[in-house]
């Protein structure tokens, strides 16, 4: 290199290096392509997918930087992650169960590209793939659901429920077809809606109202019955308490009488006197202020009204019986 060229390079290195950098970037961009971790990539040469010579299948490129022929090679990419698709056509489809119940269902699908080579051949866009998937899923839906009775779809007995079996049945049917025919890996099919046809909902409402009415009456009857039971139990309990108390009281009174009886023996010393004293006591207790007493003058002290009352003589304690009106 001559001195003149060296000095030119030294003087214009920024321009030259920048130009070189631009050229290098341009060239690299032309001859390479990136494959993301989240996507499949296939190179098509003149529209034909490049084949892996060792396997004989369409070559799938791993994530990273790869070479390609500029203008000749085209890179086809598709996201390889799972995505959710809710069926659009016939989203809510009416169908019959095994026992001829009409139900309306809609489903969703979780799918990803399973075989990029086949997917590339079959579809030009994701929308095309979803349309094909939709048809397959609808077929499986109409094939599987009528095998089950309504009680196997909706039932309070968990053991009799077959909803998961229905979902798995649809998945098994779709999975095989989708993978072998379209290169789509279906991971899950599930119910997004489960209901009745519009006309049936009115009848369901009527039944629900009748059911509520029955439950309402049941509540009232139960409440009344329970209240009556509580009241009768309360009465029984009260009677029991009183009866027990009276029994106890009788026993206690008996104890009192038993204890008193021991003292009655004392009256045996003079029974006549005891009888007389008890009679006097009874007389005292039996007459009150509101009683009317009619006596004749033979009764002391009214015997004093009789003539000769001032003449004292020996009398016995025997006295006439007064007439008493209570």
């Amino acid at each position, binding site marked *: 290199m001559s001195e003149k060229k060296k000095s030119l390079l030294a003087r214009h290195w920024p321009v030259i290096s920048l130009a070189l950098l631009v050229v290098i970037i341009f060239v690299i961009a032309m001859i390479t392509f990136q494959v993301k971790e989240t996507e499949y990539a296939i190179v098509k040469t003149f529209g034909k997918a490049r084949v892996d010579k060792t396997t004989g299948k369409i070559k799938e490129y791993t994530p990273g930087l790869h070479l390609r022929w500029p203008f000749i090679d085209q890179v086809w990419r598709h996201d390889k992650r799972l995505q959710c698709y809710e069926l659009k056509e016939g989203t809510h489809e009416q169908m019959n169960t095994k026992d001829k119940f009409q139900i309306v269902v809609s489903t969703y699908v979780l799918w990803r590209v399973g075989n990029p080579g086949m997917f590339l051949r079959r579809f030009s866009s994701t929308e095309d793939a979803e349309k094909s998937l939709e048809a397959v899923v609808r077929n499986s839906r109409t094939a599987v659901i009528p095998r089950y009775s309504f009680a196997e779809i909706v039932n309070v007995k968990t053991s009799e429920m077959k909803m998961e079996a229905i979902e798995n049945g649809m998945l098994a049917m779709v999975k095989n077809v989708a993978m072998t025919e379209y290169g789509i890996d279906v991971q899950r099919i599930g119910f997004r809606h489960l209901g009745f046809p519009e006309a049936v909902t009115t009848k369901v409402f009527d039944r629900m109202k009748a059911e509520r009415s029955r439950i309402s009456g049941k509540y009232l009857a139960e409440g*009344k019955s329970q209240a009556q039971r509580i009241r009768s139990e309360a009465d029984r309990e009260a009677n029991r308490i009183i009866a027990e108390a009276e029994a106890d009281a009788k026993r206690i009174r008996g104890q009192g009488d038993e204890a008193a009886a021991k003292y009655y023996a004392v009256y045996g010393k003079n029974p006549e006197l005891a009888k007389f004293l008890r009679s006097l006591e009874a007389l005292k207790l039996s007459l009150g202020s509101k009683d009317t*007493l009619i006596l004749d003058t033979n009764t002391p002290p009214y015997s004093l009204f009789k003539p000769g009352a001032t003449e004292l003589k020996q009398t016995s304690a025997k006295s006439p019986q007064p007439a008493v009106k209570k």
Partner: protein
Amino acid sequence: MEEYTKTTKIIDPELDENSSAGMQAVVRILRAISICLRILIVFVFGYLMFSGVFRVDEQNEAMLFRFGALQTRVLDPERGETAILTSGRWYWAWPYPIDWVKKIPAQNSVTLSTGNFFEPWINPAKGEQSAGQKTLRPGTDGYLLTGDTNIVHAQWEVTFRIDDAKTYYLNFYDDENAETIISAKKGEEEFCGVQSTIKCLLANAVILETATWGIEDLINTTRTLPNGQAESLKDKVQMRLQKLLTKVNMGIKIQSVNLVSFNYPSETVQAFQQVNDSAEEARRAVLNAEDYRDKVVLAAQGRGYSIINEAKSYRTKVVESIKADTSYFLTVLTEYERNPETMLTALYTDTIKNVLNAVDSKYVVHAVEGGNQEVRLLLNPIPEDKNENQQQNQDMSGQPN
């Protein structure tokens, strides 16, 4: 050409001078550009060096992709190689498109709800209810079927957190792309992103679970199994959803599942209200009965105590009374034995005195020989009410006595 140049030089010497000056100006401009380029290169180089420095926020986890391939590195020798970059240190990446960093909000909680089990114009969060709709249209009016074939409306909510950022990002179509698709289709809604997937799975779990519950249990949101064990609707939906998420390996962890709103179809609301009223009335009847029970039983207990205490009192009284009587008897007996006639007379007259003193109404009739005489007496005359008489006197005189 050479000849022409020479000719020109010979013809116009001033032009040659001007041309030289022009060249010099061009050279000067080129030099200036060269200097600017140098500065620019240094600046760009510096920018490239420093723009690659980044850090990860506490609530995020990040992944570094080089030419699209996920890069791993050893951050903690004990844990070995990892693809997840966490907070607390600085990282460096080449500028795009060589390297690019995906940050995932792994520590943030996200809440999603299923609004599709209500009529579309109803916002259950605001307590709105539909007004007397006679039917429910499939595809428009959302609802759930219960295990006993009733219809209910419900809104469920799930709160989740990203548990495994790598699985979450690499296994599922992210919402960034979903948004792109939505805008590309001029607003046509397209379900494909992670959030739509979770909504679908939540709806799926709710449908499957609700279809096994009777409406009474749904109203209570709990039920008792034949073995006596109780289970909650919320827990069952959460378990079912977690099972679905685990099956499809989403890399997220459910924090909670909640039943935000629950309602009956508008056509049946009144019937359900009637049940509530009846239940309330039944409860009131039972409460009244319990109140009656408390009163009656307590009154009986009180009466029982009273009976027993009366008996005890009787026992004491009868014993003490007989004691006193016997004591009295013995005393009287002693005196009686000394002087029987006098004692008996004294006792008799004392008693007659007391009795006659106590009785207000006494009639003494002269004893007739033979005892045959007619005496007419008005017994138990109506007692005069003193107060009444006083009142009558006041009325008549106009002033109190």
